[in-house]
């Protein structure tokens, strides 16, 4: 792939370029209208005051108090779940690539695909069945002498949401990261062994640096996914953990006065900005990973 620059140069080739773009127009029109335009539209409206004037005032509530706290909580939640998800997902990917046979590995791929997309309402109820006050795991642990509800823990708390999110973050990491581990060639291990390296040196000096860009890219993908997840947290916490998507949902569901509409817009754009930072990280990591693969 040469470059990401897609401007159409006005050269003698213009006609040929036109015929290249033409079949892609439906795609550009579709994504432009249903993906880019909504994002632009909400951004523009978030910069308008009640009288239609241009202003940044809609963003002031985001900078302090409960809304800032919600952003901090949301970012913290995504960070914690992506750390857990990426580390455990990478471990599973490594074990499966190394030790599982083809058919079993294919079955795990399918199951992971289901689990990675399971971040919906059903997941919340499943975890209530397992770790709720009357949950099966809770009761089994209690008979074993460990009352997990003795302290501050509930499944409806921050820790609870972390557990539930891990259920889809780990399989997502597994799916995204497995090809990278599969891409490690046997020859590299042999080469470094022939040069006198131990297994540990091979991992420290060859494998881990090779895998790092893919790992970081996947981490940002997990971060963005965890940050914007809505359904599970909503069904599980019913607002006990202040997360930005939940607050937006409440604003949208309620009878919206115009002040709150502006606030909802600003929160939505705030989320896009945070996700945008993750995207920059993701793209950077993708580029580095591609560079490794080429050379």
């Amino acid at each position, binding site marked *: 792939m040469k470059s990401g620059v897609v401007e159409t140069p006005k050269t003698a080739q213009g006609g040929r370029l036109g015929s290249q773009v033409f079949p*892609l127009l439906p795609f550009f029109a*579709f994504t432009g209208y249903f993906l880019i335009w909504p994002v632009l539209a909400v951004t523009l409206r978030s910069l308008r005051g009640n009288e239609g004037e241009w202003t940044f005032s809609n963003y002031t509530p985001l900078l302090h108090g409960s809304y800032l706290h919600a952003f901090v909580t949301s970012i913290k939640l995504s960070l914690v779940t992506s750390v857990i998800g990426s580390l455990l997902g990478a471990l*599973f990917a490594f074990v499966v690539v190394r030790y599982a046979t083809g058919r079993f590995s294919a079955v795990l791929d399918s199951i992971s695909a289901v689990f990675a997309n399971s971040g919906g309402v059903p997941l919340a109820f499943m975890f209530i069945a397992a770790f709720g006050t009357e949950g099966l795991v809770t009761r089994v642990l209690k008979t074993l002498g460990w009352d997990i509800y003795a302290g501050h823990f509930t499944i409806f708390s921050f820790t609870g949401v972390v557990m539930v999110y891990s*259920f889809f973050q780990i399989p997502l990491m597994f799916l995204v990261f497995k090809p990278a581990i599969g891409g490690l060639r046997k020859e590299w291990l042999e080469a470094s062994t022939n040069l006198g390296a131990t297994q540990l040196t091979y991992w420290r000096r060859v494998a881990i640096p090779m895998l790092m860009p893919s790992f970081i890219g996947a981490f940002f993908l997990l971060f963005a996914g965890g940050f914007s997840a*809505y359904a599970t947290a909503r069904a599980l916490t019913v607002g006990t953990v202040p997360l930005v998507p939940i607050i937006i949902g409440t604003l949208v569901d309620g009878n919206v006065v115009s002040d709150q509409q502006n606030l909802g817009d600003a929160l939505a754009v705030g989320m896009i900005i945070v996700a945008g930072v993750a995207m920059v990280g993701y793209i950077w990591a993708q580029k580095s990973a591609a560079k490794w693969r080429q050379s």
Partner: protein
Amino acid sequence: MKISPFKWILIGASAFLSLLIFVFPLFAAATYSFRGEAGKGRSLANYRWLLEQDGFYPNLFTSLKLAALAGILSLVLMVPTMVFLNLKAQRYKPLVDFLCILPLIIPVVSLAIGAQVAMPEFVQNSEYELVFFFAIIALPYTYRALDTSLQTVPLKTLVEASRSLGASWVATILKVIVPAIRSGILGALFLAFALGIGEFTITSLLHWETFPTWTVGAAQSNILGAIALSVFSFVGAIALLATISLISRRGTKPESLESEDEGVLL
């Protein structure tokens, strides 16, 4: 391969962790869902309760309909796009690639708010607006599925052969390329369908009622029923994915199988 204790520690730890994180919750939910009336014994009472709820069938039907339309829309849009992209417009691939990864990055909540701002009244007044957004959300997956399977066929040769024999572009795509990448197409179709069936965020924020949004309301009156519902959804999703992998395997295997058969026959 040498059998090292390290290997068994890794496998053991992974097995234990996956048991704890994935199997226990599923098992617990399944156990609860078969609880009898008043929490005693085992029965199908919770599943029966589910089927008796007003709105179970209508909402399931709505979800199936919208998801199927989203699957079809994804294919109609993406198959020609991906073919041209790989064939003639390689230079636009980074841009298309970027646009297709965006739905994973842009928070769905923000997209929903944006949709409320950006879509004209007549679009917002129809539940079919969801079809477009389901297709958008499925983009990263449909793109990947189609791209992967297009990489495996000699696209240029196929198209040149077909075009030089006088076939039109439409005929080339429908009669030559589509059969060649059948497994990728089915994979993309089912993924878009599965995502549409389970979509909650956009649907709920745009105030439509489908199966997933209906379940939240239904769950409030009966938690055991809600748990039965989650088991039902999970089993459904796994069944759907098993079907995908079966079909796509059938789609890719024949060539190798046929050559094996020939070997036997010859």
